[in-house]
C-alpha cells in the first residue's frame, strides 16, 4: 500500500487547486465586485456628491465586463503549472516512481521554478525560418484557449452575474469553432520553422485534426440535439437535480424515473398516482422504456467518442503524433524555445482543461451535485449551512465575496474537470502512441461511422422519450 505517495499527490492537488482558484476568485471579486462598488458607492460619499459621475460608472462597468477575461488570464498560467506537476506526479504514481519531490515542499514548487527557468531562456529564431509566422504561431495557438473558453465561464459558475456577459446563445458552436483554430497555428508553426521534423509534425496535426474533429463535433451535435439548445448555460440548467438527469445518462431520458423513484420507493406520499406522470415522460410505456435504455447506451458511447476525439484534438497521448518525441524530436515545437515554447506549453494544458470542462458541461451536469438528493436530505446539513452562513455573512452579504450557489457549482465543476484530467493522465500512462495509418483507420473507419450511427439512433429514439430538449 502506497499511502505516502498518494497522500503527497492529494496534498499537492489540494494545495495547488486552492492556490489556483483562490487567486482567480480573489482577482474576480476584486475587479468585478469590490473596486466597482468602491468607486460607485463609497467614493461619491467621501467626495460628498450625490451620484457618481458617468465616467466613474463607465469605468466600473468596464471593470465588471473585463472580469471574465481577467479570470482566465489569472487562471491559465497557474493552472498550467499545477497540471504539469499533477501530471508528473500522477504518472510517477502509475509507473511506480516518485516524481518531482525535491524543490520546495516535496516538489510543490517544481513547476514554478520550471516556469521561471523557461522565461529566462534565450528566444531563438532559426535561420531560414519565417520570423513573422514563427512568432505568430504560438499566439494563434494560445488565443483560442482564452476566448474560446469564455462561454463556459457562465456555465460553470451557475450563471454568475459577472460571467453572464460572456455567455452566447450559440455557446457550444462558438467553443467548437474556437477549438479548431489551434490546428492552423500548428501547421503554421511547423511550416515556419524551416525544419523537416516541424513540418511533418504540423502536417500530421492537420491530418489528425481533420479526421478527429468530425466525430468530436458529431458527438456534441448529438448532445445538443437531445438538449434542444446550443446555449451551454441552458444545457447545464437542464441537467440539474442529480446524476440521473445528466446528459451522460440519456440526456434526460432517465429524469422521469428520477422524478418517479421516490414514489415507487415509498420515500414520499404513496397515495400519489404515478401512472399519469409516467405517461407524461414515457408516452408509449414499453417502447419508451426500451428507447430510454437505448439512449443511455448511446450517450455513454458518445461520451467515449467525445473523449477520444478531444484527446486527438489536443494532441495528447495516444494521439500525440504531431509531437511524437521518439519520431519527430518534438514535432511542431522542435524549434521553439524560451517564452514561445512556454506559450505552446501553456496552451496545451489549457486546452486539456477546456476540453475537460466541455465534457463536464455537456455530459456530466456542470456544477450539479452528484450526491443524490435523498442522501443529502438525511444528513444534518441544514444547521451546518445556516451556521456557516451566519458566520460568513459579512463575506457573503456585505462584501459579496462568496456566493454560495456559485461556490458549490464551481466546486463540483473543479472536481469533475480534474477527474477527467486525471483520467487523461491515466490513459497517457497506459496506451502507446498510434501509428499514423492506424490513427487514420481508427478515425475514418470506426469513429466517424459510429458517430453517424449514434446520431441517427438518437434522432429516432428521442421521439419516444421526453428528453431535456
Amino acid at each position, binding site marked *: *500500500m*502506497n499511502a505516502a*505517495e*498518494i497522500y503527497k499527490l492529494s496534498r499537492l492537488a489540494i494545495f495547488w487547486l486552492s492556490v489556483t482558484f483562490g487567486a482567480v476568485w480573489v482577482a474576480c471579486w476584486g475587479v468585478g465586485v469590490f473596486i466597482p462598488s468602491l468607486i460607485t458607492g463609497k467614493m461619491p460619499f467621501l467626495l460628498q456628491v450625490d451620484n457618481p459621475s458617468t465616467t466613474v460608472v463607465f469605468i466600473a462597468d468596464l471593470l465588471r465586463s473585463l472580469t471574465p477575461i481577467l479570470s482566465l488570464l489569472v487562471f491559465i498560467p497557474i493552472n498550467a503549472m499545477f497540471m504539469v506537476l499533477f501530471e508528473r506526479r*500522477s504518472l*510517477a*504514481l*502509475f*509507473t*511506480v*516512481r*516518485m516524481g518531482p519531490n525535491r524543490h520546495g515542499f516535496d516538489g510543490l514548487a517544481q513547476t514554478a521554478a520550471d516556469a521561471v527557468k523557461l522565461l529566462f531562456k534565450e528566444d531563438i529564431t532559426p535561420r531560414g525560418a519565417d520570423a513573422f509566422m514563427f512568432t505568430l504561431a504560438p499566439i494563434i495557438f494560445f488565443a483560442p484557449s482564452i476566448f474560446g473558453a469564455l462561454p463556459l465561464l457562465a456555465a460553470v459558475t451557475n450563471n454568475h452575474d459577472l460571467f453572464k456577459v460572456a455567455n452566447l446563445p450559440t455557446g457550444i458552436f462558438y467553443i467548437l469553432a474556437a477549438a479548431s483554430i489551434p490546428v492552423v497555428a500548428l501547421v503554421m508553426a511547423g511550416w515556419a520553422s524551416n525544419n523537416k521534423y516541424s513540418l511533418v509534425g504540423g502536417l500530421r496535426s492537420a491530418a489528425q485534426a481533420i479526421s478527429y474533429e468530425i466525430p468530436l463535433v458529431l458527438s456534441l451535435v448529438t448532445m445538443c440535439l437531445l438538449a434542444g439548445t446550443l446555449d451551454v448555460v441552458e444545457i447545464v440548467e437542464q441537467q440539474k437535480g442529480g446524476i440521473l438527469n445528466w446528459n451522460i445518462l440519456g440526456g434526460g431520458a432517465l429524469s422521469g424515473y428520477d422524478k418517479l423513484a421516490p414514489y415507487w420507493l415509498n420515500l414520499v406520499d404513496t397515495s400519489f398516482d404515478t401512472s399519469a406522470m409516467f405517461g407524461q415522460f414515457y408516452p408509449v410505456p414499453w417502447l419508451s422504456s426500451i428507447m430510454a435504455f437505448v439512449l443511455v447506451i448511446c450517450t455513454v458511447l458518445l461520451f467515449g467518442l467525445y473523449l477520444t476525439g478531444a484527446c486527438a484534438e489536443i494532441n495528447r497521448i495516444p494521439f500525440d503524433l504531431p509531437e511524437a518525441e521518439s519520431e519527430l524530436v518534438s514535432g511542431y515545437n522542435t524549434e521553439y524555445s524560451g517564452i514561445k515554447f512556454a506559450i505552446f506549453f501553456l496552451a496545451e494544458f489549457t486546452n486539456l482543461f477546456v476540453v475537460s470542462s466541455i465534457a463536464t458541461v455537456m455530459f456530466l451536469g456542470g456544477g450539479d451535485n452528484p450526491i443524490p438528493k435523498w442522501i443529502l436530505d438525511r444528513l444534518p446539513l441544514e444547521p451546518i449551512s445556516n451556521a456557516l452562513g451566519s458566520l460568513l455573512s459579512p463575506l457573503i452579504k456585505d462584501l459579496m465575496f462568496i456566493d454560495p450557489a456559485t461556490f458549490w457549482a464551481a466546486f463540483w465543476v473543479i472536481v469533475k474537470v480534474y477527474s477527467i484530467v486525471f483520467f487523461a493522465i*491515466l*490513459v497517457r*500512462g*497506459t*496506451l502507446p502512441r498510434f501509428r499514423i495509418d492506424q490513427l487514420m483507420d481508427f478515425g475514418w473507419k*470506426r469513429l466517424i461511422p459510429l458517430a453517424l450511427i449514434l446520431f441517427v439512433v438518437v434522432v429516432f429514439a428521442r421521439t419516444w422519450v421526453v428528453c431535456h430538449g
Partner: protein
Amino acid sequence: MANLLDRAVESFKRVGEGLKTVFMHSFREPTTQEYPEKIQDLAPHFRGRLALAVNPDTGDHLCISCRQCERVCPDKCIEITAHKSPETNKLELIDFKIDHGLCMFCGLCTEVCPTTCIINTNDFEMADYSRESLIYDIKRLTLTQDESTYYFDKKELPRPKPKAAAKPAAAAGAAGAAAKSAAAGGDAAAKAAAAKAAAAKAAAAKAAAAKAAAAKTDDGETKAEPKAESKSEEKAAEPKADAEAAKKDVVEAKTEDITAEPKADAEAAKKDVVEAKTEDKAAEAPEKDAKKDVKEAKADEKDPE
C-alpha cells in the same frame, strides 16, 4: 458486423484491463531509490573505479609489474612504469597510472591480474573537474589494508600468500643479515646502508602511526560502507605513499653503493619496513605502539653495529 462488434468489445476489454493495471500501480511502493540519501547495496562484482589492492594480511603491494593488465586493456588506459632492480633481478613498480576518463570498466584487467592486485571497487562517484584529474596515479589507486581486506572478503577472493621476498637466511634475523653484509662488504658502505635503512624505518613508523590514526577515525564510520572508505582513502593513501617513498629510498641507497653486497641489505630494510608495519597493524593502541616502533627502529639502528 458481428466480427467487428466482437473485436470492439475485445479491444475495450483490453484497454480497460490496461487502465486498471496501470491504476493499480499507484498502490505499489515506488521502486525509486533516492540516491544521495540512500545508496544501494552494490553487488560484490560491481565494476566501479579501479584500484590496486595490498595484501590484506601484510600490507604488501600486490602488483608484480607483470603488465598483463596493461596489455589486455582494450582502451590502453593503463600505464605502468617499472624497472628491473639490478639486485633482485625483479621488477620494481615505480608508477601505475589509470586514465579513468578512458576506461570503460570492462574489468578485463582485473580478470588477468595474476595476483588479484587490480580490482574493481564499489566506488562510482568519480565526477571531477578536469580530464587530467581522472588520471589516477599509484598514490590514488592503492587501497589501504583495511579497504583491501574489505574487498577481498566481499569478492571472496583467496588471500594472497605473503611475499616470499626475504630469503630464509634474511628472515632468520634482519640484523644478523645486515651484520653479515657489513662484514663482507666493508664498514663504511654498510654503515651508510644501515643509516639509510634506519631512516626508512623511521619514516615507515611515522607513516604507520599516521595510518593507524586514520584507521582509528575510520573505525567510527564502520568499514562496511564503501563510501566511507573511499572518502578516507585520500587520507589513508598518503601514509602509504610515504611508505612507498621510504621503500624507494632504500632502493636508491642500494643502487648507490654497489660495492657493498646490497642484496641482503635491501631485503633486510624492506623486511624491516614490513615488520614495522605489521607490528603496527597488530597493535591495539596504535599511537603508543608507533612510539614503541620508533624505539625499536632506533634499537635496530644500533644492532648492526
